[in-house]
């Protein structure tokens, strides 16, 4: 190789990395590093559960990556055919286990739509607050865990610390720390407990402070930047073509958020919020967008607490819930992306068929395209920054 002239152009970093790749390729030819197949998972800390990646390597570089899913397949769509509507909310909590409350909302909406009832305004507001709280709980864990995956142990402790604060709030309101199962068809099980609102305000301040802390600790860290900048770039059009949604897509510059652009649901039309995007589309952009969205969620919760209407939290519903014949499709913006339920009812106490569209399944489908040509350590970074939940992939 004779392309070793030092460039004087400002794009020095890029040039150097290109040279590094060339040198690597030459080394691989000289050492005759043939294909090596590496099994990442199904039990590997970087895969957030039980994703298995069969990676074909040439030296340190990935030639092809093939995700093998199904290790967490629990058969939700079949199980929903044997449960009644109130029982299903217990079950679908556990699809995306980091933001359980947000999973319940689209299904309950679909059932309410079919029955022609609407939850009272106060219930809608409390649902929105709890959805945003679960978004915060998911994202602060991500903000910490992403540091862990690139080799910094400390942010993970901070992430879990903030998550505990938010989980305490959810437990205070719903009685469930992890899986609240608080939604009922037609409203909520209970009203908020006394003193919850002021406590929430305090915790939101804590979360805002720790977002600043994450910005100082992680985003400002030179090692973190060099591990994430320019790694795993998803162009906006390719992301859209693969069905990537949520923060992953917004980090690729696509300004699309179902809370604002979709069919209006919950109390989002009453709120004033900004949809954050980043033009880079790399791992860093995904981190940055989630950091901003955490702050945005805090602002939304504070707005909702200010405008919390009085009134009942449960509409009038029959004692035995029978959903009339019909079909409904409800999609919402989950913390991980677009989540939708297509419910087909034949007039019984349970649905005839439920199709679940979960975000992570589509987000992970881009992996074979995305991982081609990256280095092995960057595989871990990219997996962490895509931020998927295995239950959300396999269902």
């Amino acid at each position: 190789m004779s392309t070793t002239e030092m460039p004087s152009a400002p794009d020095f970093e890029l040039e150097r990395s290109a040279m590094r790749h060339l040198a690597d390729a030459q080394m691989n030819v000289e050492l005759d590093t043939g294909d090596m197949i590496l099994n990442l998972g199904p039990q590997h800390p970087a895969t957030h559960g039980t994703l298995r990646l069969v990676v074909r390597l040439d030296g340190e570089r990935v030639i092809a990556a093939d995700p093998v899913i199904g290790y967490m397949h629990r058969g939700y769509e079949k199980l929903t055919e044997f449960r009644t509507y109130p029982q299903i909310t217990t079950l679908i909590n556990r699809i995306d286990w980091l933001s359980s409350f947000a999973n319940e909302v689209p299904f309950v909406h679909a059932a309410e739509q079919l029955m022609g009832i609407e939850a009272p305004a106060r219930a809608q507001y409390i649902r929105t607050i709890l959805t945003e709280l679960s978004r915060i709980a998911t994202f602060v864990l991500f903000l910490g865990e992403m540091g862990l995956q690139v080799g910094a142990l400390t942010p993970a402790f901070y992430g879990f610390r903030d998550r505990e604060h938010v989980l305490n709030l959810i437990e205070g309101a719903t009685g469930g720390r992890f899986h609240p199962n608080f939604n009922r068809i037609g409203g909520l099980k209970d009203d908020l407990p006394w003193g919850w609102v002021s406590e929430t305000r305090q915790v939101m301040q804590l979360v805002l402070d720790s977002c600043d802390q994450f910005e100082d600790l992680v985003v400002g860290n030179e090692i973190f930047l060099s591990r994430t900048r320019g790694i795993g770039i998803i162009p906006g059009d390719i992301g859209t073509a693969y069905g990537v949604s949520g923060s992953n897509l917004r980090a690729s510059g696509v300004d699309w958020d179902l809370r604002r652009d979709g069919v209006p649901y919950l109390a989002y039309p009453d709120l004033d919020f900004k949809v954050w995007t980043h033009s880079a589309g790399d791992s860093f952009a995904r981190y940055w967008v989630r950091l901003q969205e955490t702050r945005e969620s805090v602002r939304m919760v504070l707005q909702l607490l200010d405008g919390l209407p009085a009134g009942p939290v449960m509409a009038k519903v029959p004692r035995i819930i029978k959903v009339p014949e019909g079909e409904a499709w409800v999609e919402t913006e989950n913390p991980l992306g677009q989540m939708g339920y297509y419910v087909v009812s034949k007039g019984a106490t349970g649905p005839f068929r439920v199709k679940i569209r979960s975000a992570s399944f589509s987000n992970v489908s881009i992996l074979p395209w995305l991982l081609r040509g990256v280095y092995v350590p960057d595989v871990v970074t990219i997996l962490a920054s895509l931020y998927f939940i295995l239950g959300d992939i396999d269902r």
Partner: protein
Amino acid sequence: MGLIDKGRAPKPLTWLLNYSRKYSLWMFQWGLACCAIEMGAALASPRYDMMRLGVIPFPASPRQADLVVISGTVTDKMAPAIRRLYEQMPDPKYVISMGSCANCGGPYWDSYSVTKGVDQIIPVDIYVPGCPPRPEALLQAIVMLQAQIQNEGIGNDQLQKRWRGEPVVIDDPHTAPVVLGPKPEPTAVPVV
């Protein structure tokens, strides 16, 4: 260690070895589903901090682990991998089954793809109920396991007795007397 091989270790030595063993448990984390996050909270969050109990949660491989926590839903596709990694662990090894799914299938008791209980494929020492259990419950399980280890004989025949599946009785002043391990099989009625 000829005495130990014969299963006749002196009592103070047994006590000392068990005491050292129970406070240096290398724990292999088998995070599968929701419970994995609660296990992570028990390990990594400053509020619970499992490492103060002498549990070291970062073995590089199951070959260095004493304890495995199966936390989450075990599916039929995952079961062979669990069996294989369990067999890679050196004896004596302990298993904590965390959460309803690993105990008995939990909310997926009628699912076509879920193994109804990890004890169908590997022997379990402690079951932690809950869906998911709180991190405190996992800490309690660790404390109970340590009481069990303290109570064990270290001779070979004792260990063999343990792996024959006979129940181990915890005699610890801090916990109520508990019988752990698989339930004794009902004795077969001889056919006359």
